[in-house]
């Protein structure tokens, strides 16, 4: 069974339709790349999955259970939305690290706040907090940042900041990790270190959705690719197939523009 099922998502901003009839599935352990030109709706789609935008139509199911259905108000309660968001992790284009916290605090803050809701929090407070700290440190180590744990975001390079942001998202153990153009705000020489981390996550079978402009990366790392244009899915399929042999004319045009650059 697919871990994520998106059915007929539609989204309007005022009179502009930004997403139209978006449907796709994602299997556990697979990486999905969403490609397309700017303004094609890729980011909005990702924001809908994280409930940063509310779709006007359609439904989202995780592991077979409907977590959002535009037709069913019972699935849209603000109080439950917060918990449902935790199915998804999100890595932003502009990192959005909290500037007043160190790298480690950025990674552990939300986990510590969530731990307070645990029934046994009061009795085992010190143990729980120590575990969270250890896990945060281990995550930073996985990102190659163990020596940067006590640095503040402004003391880190863009690539390091983005890796902290990835660790922060992983700390909550999301079912699906979403990346919104994770390297677009980075200098070319810093792009590699972030892509390397994402690649290693793919090797460890992390379920991921990656909105990206890095075609070669999408082709190598993703299992599936969705090409979007004008708010609709033009083509979807196995990554190598879509990128090497696109069936649709629009996909071909888009990819050939990349080949030229």
């Amino acid at each position, binding site marked *: 069974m697919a871990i994520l099922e998106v059915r007929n998502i539609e989204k309007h901003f005022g009179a502009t339709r930004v997403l139209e009839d978006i449907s796709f599935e994602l299997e556990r352990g697979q990486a999905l790349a969403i490609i397309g030109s700017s303004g094609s709706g890729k980011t909005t789609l990702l924001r809908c999955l994280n409930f940063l935008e509310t779709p006007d139509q359609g439904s989202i199911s995780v592991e077979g259970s409907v977590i959002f259905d535009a037709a069913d108000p019972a699935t849209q309660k603000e109080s439950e939305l917060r918990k449902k*968001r935790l199915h998804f992790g999100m890595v932003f284009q502009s990192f*959005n690290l909290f500037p007043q916290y160190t790298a480690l605090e950025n990674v552990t803050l939300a986990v510590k706040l969530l731990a307070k809701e645990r029934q046994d929090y009061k009795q085992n407070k010190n143990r729980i907090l120590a575990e969270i700290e250890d896990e945060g440190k281990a995550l930073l180590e996985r990102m190659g940042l163990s020596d940067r744990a006590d640095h503040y*975001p402004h003391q880190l390079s863009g690539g390091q900041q983005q890796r902290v942001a990835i660790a922060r998202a992983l700390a909550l153990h999301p079912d699906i990790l979403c990346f919104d153009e994770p390297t677009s705000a980075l200098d070319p020489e810093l792009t590699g270190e972030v892509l390397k981390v994402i690649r290693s996550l793919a090797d460890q079978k992390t379920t991921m959705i990656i909105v990206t402009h890095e075609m070669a990366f999408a082709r190598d790392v993703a299992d599936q690719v969705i090409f979007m244009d004008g708010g609709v899915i033009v083509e979807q399929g196995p990554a190598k197939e879509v990128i090497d042999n696109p069936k649709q004319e629009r996909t071909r045009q888009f990819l050939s523009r990349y080949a030229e650059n």
Partner: protein
Amino acid sequence: MFWQVTLSILKGCGEAAELFFLTLLFSLPLGLVISFGSMSKWTPFRKLYGRQNRFLHGLARIRPISTITNTVVWIIRGTPLMLQLIIVFYGPGMWFDANPWNLFADGRMFACVLTFVVNYACYFSVIFRGGIEGVPVGQREAGQVLGMTKTQIFFKVTLLQMIKQVVPPMSNEIITLVKDTSLARIIAITEIIKAGESFMKSDGITWPLFYTAVFYLAFVGALTLLFGWIERKMDYFR
């Protein structure tokens, strides 16, 4: 004579300091509440949106809380503090034949603090709003996707970044407050200026009036050091 004048002005300083600290104590939190009010997006009539009747359709867009708070802020910021003091302290007696300020041990000071608190809270609210809106949307969104509640996002993410942003404009406003305490004399509170000026009538000397500047300068100097220290304290992040 010098010591007599200094002592008298110091007493005025006591009144001014009482007014200053009480005003800050209450107007800072009240200003935050007002800033939330002015940012309120609550539209109780939104169900009327799209009605044929243009009046009902227009009603749907109304945000009563932010409209009311913005009107109050406009009135308070749009009229002189001195006039507000006169209205609050003398108004009830003049128009309603009742002086509620007699009910308090120090009615003049009470009325004065009340007026100052409301006045300064309105100014602070605008600074706070700027500070809150100055925190990038991405910060709140990052908190949301990490499963934090609205309250957690405000206190753990937004608040400190907002404070950092508002310290410079707040220091301006607070320094103005020091000097605005001199307005209290209009309802016969013996603050610093009145204390200094009184020697003109009683002893025919003018230097005590100008001597009061030293006290304001000392007070503001201490505050300047304090704000500099706070700004340095928050230099660790950007």
